[in-house]
């Protein structure tokens, strides 16, 4: 809400220390002063002048005692007879004294040169302030602008609709801070005459006042009203609208004026819209209506959306002579629903949905109608009111509950009276404009706010010491993150919203689109972590970092099924820098090694099967299989995607379902206790057909090695067509045998080796001659 100090002072004494109040404001009310604008005089001898003529590129202006030729800083051509601010030679603006420049004896400054902030909606043309003719030529500008003044931009929490006007705000300052206020004179209106209004939807419209005024002249408002509105952040338009806007800003009462001659059948009907009805609102948009929306209609059609916006079909224009002024109380819910269904927010709907004062509808109607007659002429023909106003409401106070909340027993009657409310039989009588006060807790809030929270003593609760487990997913996530980090991977927390193009480029399906994205860059929910990690790699490469080791345990949303995924991306060299030329390239087997160790720690037995995925290198990718189910993949990124993302290094990636780790979280791996008895080892060197997977060779060895085989270590693999032959590879492994209860004899090991050799040879494997050979 925008309020000006000058307007507030109409309700406050002149000697009020407003800065002090603004300072204490947010400690006692749910409001915040977001911005304060000082309107101060930073110029001298600037006056209001009238453009008489145009000459060369300048203007001849009348400044009262003489006519001078001036140049303009405005951005548009100003018409003759317009009244503007003029700074003749010798005037001062800011630190600058205006001097004669060529033939020009002054300037027409812009509002920003004069230090007027944009929040002040003064009428202007091309940045130049313009004045109506009721401001006399020669008037000092500071007088015309009413300087000094101050404008406050104040945030008001949604339930405090009662604070959303100058009067409402000041009224509360009076109650909370004990500031003396001048209560305006609200006229009593009891009469109701005429038969224009008919309310079909009484539940939505508890009070409705309508005033028919005939013979008005639509024209510019007097300067004082224009300036008042401008400092309340409202751009002046013409008299009738300015007056309704004045009541909106100053008293929080929205009003609407219809061009009476365009209202068909001489009837104003308040009713729900019919499904399929259509109205073009004042903003020129055609809107489809339904039964949830409350409208004002004439005998034929809707002419306004109640509490939100008027219709073009009854818009007041320069030619309007007769108006029908609507001042009503529509319920917050009906206006909020209309406004949201139509996605149309206005100053009026803002007020209605937060709740306006139900006690002064006809008073405001009368005040505004009289102001219109005073300013625009004409005559009040009829004044009609449907429904009755109410001044107060009752809020039940559960003292027992209230005592619990404040932590002590209070004399609630005294507290309530201190608030300025009445207290009768466990009921608090509050003004009807306090839509935020409905239950015990609201009254407690009101009391504590008045004290200030520092008045409530800190207290530590006691509770029974019981144990309750954290959600398991939290513990799995924590443990996994720490293990991955301990394996040399850097954790990232990337955004789960993406550009759909990146999802497509990464070949991981399509993300579910948001219904109302801010921009295409963040318009779909990622179905997979791959694109996020590729973007992270790219961002590192752009920064000159080519050795990238990242992981994320992140949410993914394939077809909106929210789940966690573990993603790892490695590229480049694990040794970032070493002057001795150490090197650990981050290839498939590097990443596989990390996975194997993590799985070992969780007691997970994984198998790796060659696989094809659209995003993985067809010949360098494996599915990770646990308990017969595919739980993830590992592989080099597909070369096409390397190109699509324009990456400098081809990464190796792995993705594992988070669920796997949840399943294994509570399985405790068996500890491997070191055995003290001596080990015995045997090396095997063999020539193997190239297509035979290592896994099968190892399985064959294990199956035939007897019970004391402790480990198999592959220590050499090489291929050489000339030395070994085509489609063959040489593999050397070392087997370690150990008995738990004593030394294993060489002869015994030889026996096992014999079995192994026989088994391997049956698989088309040649055992090479060597010292271990029989």
């Amino acid at each position, binding site marked *: 809400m925008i309020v000006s100090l000058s307007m507030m002072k109409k309700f406050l004494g002149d000697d009020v220390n407003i800065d002090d109040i603004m300072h204490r404001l947010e400690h006692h009310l749910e409001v915040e002063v977001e911005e304060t604008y000082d309107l101060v005089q930073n110029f001298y001898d600037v006056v209001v002048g009238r453009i008489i003529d145009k000459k060369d590129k300048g203007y001849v202006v009348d400044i009262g005692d003489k006519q001078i030729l001036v140049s303009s800083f405005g951005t548009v051509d100003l018409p003759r007879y317009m009244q503007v601010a003029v700074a003749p030679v010798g005037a001062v603006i800011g630190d600058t004294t205006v001097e004669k420049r060529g033939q020009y004896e002054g300037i027409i400054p812009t509002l920003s040169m004069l230090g007027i902030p944009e929040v002040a909606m003064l009428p202007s043309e091309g940045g130049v302030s313009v004045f109506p003719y009721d401001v006399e030529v020669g008037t000092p500008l500071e007088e015309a602008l009413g300087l000094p003044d101050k404008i406050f931009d104040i945030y008001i929490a949604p339930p405090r609709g009662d604070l959303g006007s100058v009067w409402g705000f000041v009224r509360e300052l009076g109650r909370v801070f004990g500031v003396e206020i001048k209560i305006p004179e609200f006229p009593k209106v009891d009469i109701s005459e005429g038969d224009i209004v008919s309310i079909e939807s009484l539940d939505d419209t508890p009070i409705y006042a309508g005033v028919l005024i005939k013979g008005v002249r639509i024209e510019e408002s007097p300067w004082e009203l224009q300036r008042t509105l401008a400092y309340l952040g409202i751009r002046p338009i013409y008299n009738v609208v300015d007056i309704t806007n004045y009541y909106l800003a100053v008293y929080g009462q929205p009003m609407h004026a219809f061009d009476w001659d365009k209202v068909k059948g001489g009837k104003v009907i308040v009713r729900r819209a019919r499904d399929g009805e259509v109205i073009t609102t004042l903003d020129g948009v055609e809107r489809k209506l339904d039964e949830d929306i409350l409208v004002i209609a004439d005998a034929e059609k809707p002419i306004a959306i109640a509490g939100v916006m008027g219709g073009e079909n009854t818009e007041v224009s320069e030619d309007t002579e007769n108006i029908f002024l609507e001042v009503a109380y529509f319920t917050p819910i009906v206006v909020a629903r209309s406004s949201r269904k139509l996605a149309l927010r206005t100053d009026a709907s803002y007020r209605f*949905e937060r709740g306006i004062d139900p006690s002064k509808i006809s008073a405001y109607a009368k005040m505004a109608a009289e102001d219109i007659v005073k300013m625009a002429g004409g005559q009040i023909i009829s004044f009609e009111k449907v429904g009755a106003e109410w001044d107060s409401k009752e809020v039940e106070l559960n003292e027992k509950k209230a005592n619990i909340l404040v932590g002590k027993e209070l004399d609630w009657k005294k507290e309530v009276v201190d608030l300025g409310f009445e207290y009768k039989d466990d009921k608090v009588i509050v003004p009807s404009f306090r839509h935020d006060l409905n239950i015990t807790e609201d009254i407690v809030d009101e009391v504590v706010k008045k004290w200030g929270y520092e008045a409530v003593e800190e207290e530590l609760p006691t509770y029974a010491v019981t144990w309750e487990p954290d959600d398991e997913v939290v513990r799995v996530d924590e443990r996994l993150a720490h293990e991955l980090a301990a394996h040399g991977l850097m954790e990232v927390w990337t955004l789960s919203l993406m550009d759909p193009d990146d999802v497509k480029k990464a070949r991981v399906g399509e993300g579910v689109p948001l219904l109302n994205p801010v921009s295409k860059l963040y318009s779909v929910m990622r179905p997979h972590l791959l694109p996020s990690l590729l973007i992270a790699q790219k961002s590192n490469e752009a920064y000159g970092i080519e050795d990238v080791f990242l992981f994320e345990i992140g949410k993914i949303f394939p077809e909106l099924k929210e789940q966690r995924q573990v993603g790892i991306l490695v590229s480049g060299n694990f040794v970032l820098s070493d002057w001795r030329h150490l090197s650990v390239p981050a290839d498939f087997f590097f990443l596989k090694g990390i996975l194997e160790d993590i799985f070992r720690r969780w007691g997970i037995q994984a198998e790796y099967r060659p696989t094809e995925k659209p995003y993985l290198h067809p010949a360098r990718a494996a599915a990770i299989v646990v308990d017969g189910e595919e739980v993830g993949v590992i592989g080099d990124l597909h070369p096409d995607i390397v190109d699509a993302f324009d990456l400098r290094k081809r990464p190796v990636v792995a993705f594992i379902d988070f669920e796997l780790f949840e399943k294994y979280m509570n399985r405790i791996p068996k500890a491997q206790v070191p055995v003290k008895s001596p080990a015995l080892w045997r090396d095997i060197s063999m020539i193997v057909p190239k297509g035979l997977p290592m896994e099968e060779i190892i399985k064959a060895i294990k199956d035939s090695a007897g019970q004391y085989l402790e480990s198999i270590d592959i220590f050499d693999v090489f291929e050489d067509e000339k030395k070994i032959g085509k489609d063959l590879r040489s593999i050397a492994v070392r087997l370690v045998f150990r008995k738990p209860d004593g030394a294993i004899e060489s002869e015994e090991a030889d026996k096992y080796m014999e079995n192994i050799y026989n088994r391997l040879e049956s698989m088309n494997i040649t055992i090479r001659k060597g010292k271990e050979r029989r």
Partner: protein
Amino acid sequence: MDVRSIREELLKSFENVRTLEELEALRVRFLGKKGVIQQGFKKLKELPPEEKKAMGKLLNDLRKEVEERLASVRERLLEEERKQQVERERIDVTMPGTELAWGSTHILRKAKEELQYIARKLGFTIVDGPEVEDDFHNFEALNFPPYHPSRDMQDTLFLPGGLLLRTHTSAVQIRALQRKKPPVRIFTVGRVYRREEVTARKFLAFHQAEGLWIDKKVSIGHLKGVLAEFIKGFFGPGYKLRFRPSYFPFVEPGMEVDVECVFCGGKGCKVCQYSGWLEILGAGMVHPNVLRAVGYDPEEYTGFAFGMGVDRMVMLKYGINDIRLLFDGNQKFLRSV
């Protein structure tokens, strides 16, 4: 045999020994089977009995002396050799160490774990909830009625099927309360989303931490007390708290909580924009409508909730000026925090 001259020769020889090999040669020469001293002993029996005894003693003394000498020279030589070895192995310790791609958990996880640690010590249980929510859990049960203007406080990103991205971790409260029974003390940290234009200060996603305590007779004083303990855990003891009235639909009374600026001790600095206070928490007493929505009797139970922006705390603490850095994977940044 002239033992004295042998002794002199021997002592002289020891002075010139340079290596362990030379020393061994000396040992053989004097103490070996065919060495001088053994030879002397062999010749003993040729001597007359009166000389035998004296000569025997001389030879024994000599052998003892030689053995001692041998040991001390060996020690000296070993020491020298170790010295040389050490010198050969000297390195330039000012050369840099090997830089590996050391891993680390994310800065936001570190903050999350720290907050959870404090919460656990205060008796809260850590809970988790989904990011894709429905209107009931994110709004309606939290006392945001349909069409109510309070819904405008949080611009929401909507998904197909009546779903949305949760705008606050308070949605987790509802899910946790639905599956638990009072008394309830829960704490959650998670990602939330708002429909925001992206800037250095605002992002479409950020992280919230939120605590909730529901029990019989929980008061505003308890809220103040527990929050003070929480802040003590996070920033250390001695920082004042300030409570200001505020509005969140799911609490009444509702308040904003400021902590005395931990960077300037309340004197005013750039971080606190010279106010002396950091605005970091929202809090309040759980609204009876929320309790009702999850089937708790507001006549029997009261409670408090508090929440804070995790990203903001991290940014304050580490001097990070752009929230987007937290979501980027830049390793240089990630390794620095």
